């Protein structure tokens, strides 16, 4: 770090200081990799423009928070990252009005689009200078009810929201129907997603994505749970890479409360994170081969993946949703016997995977359909602030493990796997190479794992502190922001990599063959919410059975007509 010391003995980070030229705000912190600035809404545009001028700045996340009860204002947290300097810039903008308003940043930062729409939906914040519309919430959600405002508890919201399903059924004369399965079509992965492809012949001319079929309200739910309960909820955000979410949440709390995590716990977290990456990449590669019609490769890759799942069970007690993380460390140790077994399994997995990949990628149809399809330029990847293998497949060497090291990654040398062609083959090869890289990293972690405690329980909550936790998930960066409350997180913001990467899919789909569209959609390894909902409606008895919180699809019944 490039530092200097002033007359009073304060240490300054010169790189961080250089970023602050032209910034109109109060600097709260500018050491330890994070620069925090408080900026008045009137100066927000100017400040962001000055920061973006530094080049290679990307939007990591944005969080809106209702802090009226503690600071009398709503607050926006913009988190920017500068990879080459390994710096995170957090801009805090208080909005102290009953009708909170802020200028839109859409003309400066393209990737801000969804964040602003979401903040408008969930907190009622107006962004001046752009069109806003219902985005995350269902269209029959009552107007003027903003669920993330502190005016409502989760129980209030459940009473306030009554889906208009019977009225809708009558509108479309569906009285004769007995059971109506609700759920959009799954073109690539078996999750709720909806793409409209505008096709001429077999060529995709344009594409539109409609998302947020199932908004589960997890952030709101977390505000009513104790600090050590939230990791178990966070792990259920995703059925494939849940551990990254619990780790990211724990890191955010540990960062906010300055909790010292034992070294051994850092190593254990890193080992499990890499195991999760291996099984996630193997899962994706299997799905990709299935989409290309090469089912033999698909089955064998999943056979290899099964060994990794067994390994996860050996180390954590569960194949998935490990329940290993707590704030301050982990709950379960890895002994020498398990470590040796782990190395043996990984050696076999690596050997078999190498043979299988060589065969699979040389199948003519697989090779021809991966190469040159779903193209995404480096410029697009940069302007949309993309993350993970999607960014690395377009030549953007962005990897949180190297750029913003966490857990035990600060002790190893992680070289991002980068392919610059920007097509589906590049994104595939990034994942293939990362499997081998992860095996090597686990070997390194096991060999260098120090002895000692695995958890630090000696910490106390200090309300009003803000912490950031980010992890390089298999799909890209996962970032959590936590503002601490007395007993629970006051505000917990989760940003998944798919949220960041999905806006790139319509770009990739343009001029692609229809046959390659499912693979292109899958090439970002999208992870939509993993829970479809079904409502059973019996018009003869006029009864509605809701299997879970009945959040209707944005398009309502018209989407299945």
């Amino acid at each position, binding site marked *: 770090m490039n530092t200097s010391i002033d007359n009073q003995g304060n240490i300054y980070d010169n790189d961080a200081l250089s970023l602050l030229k032209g910034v109109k705000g109060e600097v709260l912190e500018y050491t330890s990799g994070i620069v925090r600035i408080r900026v008045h809404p009137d100066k927000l545009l100017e400040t962001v423009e000055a920061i973006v001028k530094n080049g290679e700045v990307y939007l990591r996340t944005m969080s809106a928070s209702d802090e009226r009860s503690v600071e009398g204002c709503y607050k926006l947290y913009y988190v920017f990252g500068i990879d080459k300097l390994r710096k995170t810039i957090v801009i805090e903008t208080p909005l102290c009005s009953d009708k909170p308003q802020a200028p839109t940043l859409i003309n400066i930062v393209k990737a801000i689009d969804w964040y602003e729409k979401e903040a408008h939906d969930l907190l009622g914040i107006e962004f001046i200078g752009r069109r806003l519309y219902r985005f995350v919430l269902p269209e029959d959600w009552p107007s003027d009810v903003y669920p993330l405002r502190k005016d409502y508890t989760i129980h209030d919201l459940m009473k306030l929201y009554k889906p208009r399903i019977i009225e809708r059924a009558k509108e479309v004369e569906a009285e004769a129907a007995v059971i109506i399965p609700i759920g959009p079509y799954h073109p690539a992965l078996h999750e709720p997603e909806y793409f409209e492809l505008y096709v001429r012949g*077999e060529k995709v001319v344009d594409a539109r994505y409609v998302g947020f079929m199932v908004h589960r309200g997890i952030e709101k739910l977390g505000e009513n749970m104790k600090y050590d309960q939230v990791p178990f909820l966070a792990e259920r955000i995703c059925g494939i890479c849940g551990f990254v979410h619990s780790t990211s949440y724990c890191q955010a709390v540990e960062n906010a409360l300055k909790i010292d995590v034992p070294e051994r716990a850092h190593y254990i977290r890193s080992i499990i994170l890499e195991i999760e990456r291996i099984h996630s990449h193997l899962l994706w590669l299997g799905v990709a081969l299935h989409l290309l*019609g*090469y089912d*033999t490769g698909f089955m064998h890759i999943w056979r290899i993946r099964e060994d990794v799942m067994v390994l996860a069970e050996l180390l954590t007690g569960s194949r998935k949703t490990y329940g290993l993380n707590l704030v301050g460390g982990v709950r379960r140790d890895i002994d020498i016997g398990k470590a040796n077994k782990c190395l043996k399994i990984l050696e076999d997995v690596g050997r078999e995977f190498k043979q299988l990949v060589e065969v699979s990628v040389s199948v003519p149809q697989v090779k021809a359909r991966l190469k040159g399809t779903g193209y995404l330029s480096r410029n697009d990847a940069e302007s949309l602030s993309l993350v993970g293998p999607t960014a690395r497949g377009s030549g953007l060497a962005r990897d949180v493990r190297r750029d913003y090291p966490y857990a035990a990654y600060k002790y190893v040398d992680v070289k991002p796997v980068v392919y610059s062609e920007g097509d589906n083959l590049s994104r595939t090869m990034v994942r293939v190479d990362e499997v081998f890289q992860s095996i090597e990293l686990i070997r390194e972690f096991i060999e260098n794992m120090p002895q000692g405690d695995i958890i630090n329980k000696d910490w106390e909550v200090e309300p009003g502190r803000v912490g950031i936790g980010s992890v390089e998930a298999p799909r890209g960066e996962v970032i959590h922001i936590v503002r601490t409350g007395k007993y629970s997180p006051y505000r917990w913001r989760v940003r998944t990599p798919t949220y960041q990467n999905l806006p790139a899919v319509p770009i990739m789909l343009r001029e692609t063959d229809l*046959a390659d569209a*499912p693979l292109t959609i899958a090439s970002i390894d999208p992870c939509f919410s993993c829970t479809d909902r079904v409502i059973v409606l019996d018009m003869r008895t006029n009864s509605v059975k809701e299997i879970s919180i009945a959040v209707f699809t944005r398009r309502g019944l018209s989407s299945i007509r």
Partner: protein
Amino acid sequence: MFIPPLLDGIERKIKADIQSRVGPPTVLQTWYDILKLFSKEMVSQSKPTFFIFALSASLTLLLILSLILTYIIVNPNNTLLEFGTTSTSFLLLSLILVLIISIHAINSLIYTVSSNPFSIIGVFRALTIDLMNEAMFVSFLVIMFSLVINRNSVSIIQLFSHKRTIPLIIVSYIPLVLSTYISSRRLPYDLHEAEPELASGSIIELSGPALGLYIYNHLIERYIVTSIPVTMLILALMGCLNPLLYVLILHLGTSILYLLFGLISFTVGRSRIDMAFKTISLLYIFAILLWIGVYIFEYIYR
């Protein structure tokens, strides 16, 4: 009528074994699937009778085709391969071609009844591949017959019965087997119902008994089409065995070829329509050039 779904069951078990899976519980599973579909209620956007009628007509034509093939091989005075000498051979060959094209036409009609975009895309893909396949195969036949008849004024059977022509017999079968494989709609040419991208494509609107009938129909078609090269091989090598033994050889040979085709399909991925167009052209051009090369070598230089 019983063999095709059984062969499909065997194919599924072999596929499962290759892919390290258990697969269906029994080789009769395809039969159970079809029977179960027949027992389901009929739900259809169009009139259900249309599907049943069209599929039944297609099935009937398939059975006529199988009867003709059986007749050809049990008939001791067979003249199918004696082109240039009898008009019966042209009649039989034309009948086989007309039947195959009629079956494809009826199937296409079933697919296009629906206004579902997936179905429409599927049927256009199927038609593209069928037309390409049939056009290229007919081109090969025209080249072959014109060369053979013009130069030698002999029948194919005489040509093939000559000792020196064994390499020519082999290369003559390449386009036939190729055409059969493509017609059987296996990977990489199963584009019309590519499940991940087209949600079952051309058959998306079929369910219950109509789907059961379609699957049965499709499997019989696949089996009968596969039996054509075996029939031709038996005719070319025909000796003086009991004609009924030929029927046994026909079914045994067809079953082996059917499973061999299955094995090939496990090792490849799914093509794309533009790629399929190119690969089919290239494969046929290669096969035709090879045939011409061998023909020139056998009859001009020797």
